[in-house]
């Protein structure tokens, strides 16, 4: 054990207290603002103690923004992202580490090249892809002549059947966010550390690949899956740009976009009390996850960057 300095210790506590205060200050003022009436929120100087309208404001904001529906949307989209991404990437990771097949390296590189480009840099082309998901198939079938063939022989309009507009749909909100290989990469790294003897033993006992996967590999990965699902939950719930682009109808907004709509604009009545009260219930689910599952979350975060 090394020596302790009382002054250094004191200094460190002061630094950490300042840090904690800097984190809490905006949240505290948001709470104060959320507990005032519209008149009180505009007074100068700003009150330092909360009023007693917090519950009332929360209910008003919830009703005004139709957050029952938006919350449901957020939950569906977030669960879709977590479950979809985990399911897709755990089997893809299994395939590239445990199978020998032609074009294995090609598949590997096709998947891992997607780590290169975050969704934000592909905003517009991805928007088009989601607005017209059938487009590539239409031009493909058009080019090979299938469209014309079907139309002339059976009268079936293939082009019309391939009009998939995913704007304002859960698929459009979920699928583009799953299209990245980060989780696949993580599972691959983990599977490479699993001892070879397990697979040998499973083979000796006559287990096929799917049985080995279900009975050996999945149980082994459970802690990785738990840690990763927390990170993905935060990622999915906190999405902003995607829902902003892909939803034009209010019924399909997520809670995050609903909150954005509550922010007072320059000339309107400064209803900050509602926006602040709403910000609490919009950030509550991820905040609870972090507070209750801090250990898993830290582990997932540090692991997922390896």
């Amino acid at each position: 054990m090394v020596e302790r300095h009382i002054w250094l210790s004191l200094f460190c506590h002061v630094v950490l207290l300042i840090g904690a205060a800097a984190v809490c200050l905006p949240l505290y003022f948001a709470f104060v603002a959320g507990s005032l009436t519209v008149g009180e929120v505009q007074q100068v100087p700003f009150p330092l103690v909360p009023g007693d309208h917090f519950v009332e404001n929360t209910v008003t904001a919830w009703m005004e923004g139709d957050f029952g529906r938006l919350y449901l949307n957020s939950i569906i989209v977030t669960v879709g992202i977590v479950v979809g991404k985990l399911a897709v990437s755990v089997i893809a990771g299994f395939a590239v580490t445990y199978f020998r097949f032609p074009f294995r390296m090609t598949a590997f590189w096709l998947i891992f090249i997607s780590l290169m480009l975050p969704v934000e840099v592909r905003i517009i082309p991805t928007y088009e892809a989601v607005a017209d998901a059938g487009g590539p198939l239409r031009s493909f079938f058009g080019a090979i002549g299938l469209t014309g063939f079907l139309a002339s022989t059976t009268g079936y309009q293939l082009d019309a059947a391939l009009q998939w507009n995913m704007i304002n749909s859960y698929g459009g909100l979920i699928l583009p966010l799953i299209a990245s290989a980060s989780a696949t990469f993580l599972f691959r790294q983990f599977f490479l550390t699993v001892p070879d003897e397990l697979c040998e033993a499973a083979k000796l006992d006559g287990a096929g690949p799917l049985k080995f996967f279900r009975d050996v590999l999945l149980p082994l990965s459970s802690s990785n899956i738990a840690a990763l699902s927390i990170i993905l939950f935060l990622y999915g719930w906190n999405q902003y740009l995607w829902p902003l682009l892909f939803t034009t109808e209010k019924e399909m907004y997520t809670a995050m976009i609903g909150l954005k709509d509550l922010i007072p604009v320059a000339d309107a009545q400064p209803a900050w009390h509602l926006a602040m009260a709403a910000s609490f219930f919009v950030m509550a689910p991820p905040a609870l996850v972090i507070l209750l599952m801090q250990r898993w979350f830290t582990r997932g975060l540090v692991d997922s960057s390896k």
Partner: protein
Amino acid sequence: MPASSAMRLSEGAATRLRFPLRLKLGSLLSSSETGLKASHFRRPWLAAGLLAPQLLILLFFFFIPTWKALSLAFVQVDPFGATMIFVGLDNFTTLFSSPEYRDSAVLTLWFTTVQCFVTLFVACLFAFATDQVMRGRAIYKGVILLPYAIAPAISGVLWAFLFNPTVGPLAQILDELGYAWDPNRRPSDALLLVSVAAIWKHVCYDYIFLVAAFLAVPASVIEAGAIDGAGPVRRFLTITLPMAAPTIFFLIVMNFVYGLFETFGIIDVITHGGPAGSTNTLVYKVYQDGFRQLDLGSSAAQSVVLMAIAVLFTVLQFRAVERKVNYQV
């Protein structure tokens, strides 16, 4: 041992022996053994089925969009969308000669650099302090981690309120101090506000990694330093910090990525890129030009520039992770 599994085993051994011969046929076709378990299965169709969902999603939402952005960047579409003319690098030369784009690039560079190093410095200070204190460590950690749960957009909302020129409590304090704070009109105020919101949201990320890295420094090395007479600050600067250097390098890369791509929500909530383009970063500009101005050629060219930057950072990130693996004790 049942005969069938013995056969399967010998079959596996034979493959491994045959492998160097098959390599000659072309490594892509035969699938090299890189990253393949020594004990594996040989069921190509099952593997294809397992890979299919991932590859299909990537095809529709990654490869096709990326290809479209790349191809759109080199053509000019007429206003009715009927014809496309190949124009080579014209979109890029127009882009780079546009003063607005240059301003946005310079602004982005400034913003990300300042954000990156301030975040890192503050997180380093907190992590150092956390490493020193015994009492209340878990509580401090819990509170400082909290902003990780808060979306950039919500961080934007909170700070937009705090510094709102009419109702914001902190703006009122600035007013009383004699500074006419107004992020809606004064560009420097807007940029400062966006930076503060971005840093507030991101310090926790660096903090998590630094606390883990400082904790990983072996106690024996620290004790050796103490015996040699180095005080806590000296030990931190000459032992802990150099040993955490790979993590710090990794965090610098990640901070730049965050500043470039993930601050969209903050900017959209607080300033919408204004006033006078003072917070219009490159990513926000792609969105503005593509969705507000509908200038698709220019926005595709901008996307390609961003892609190049993103690829650069990914390469750097992989380097950083490699170094982390190699040097961490």
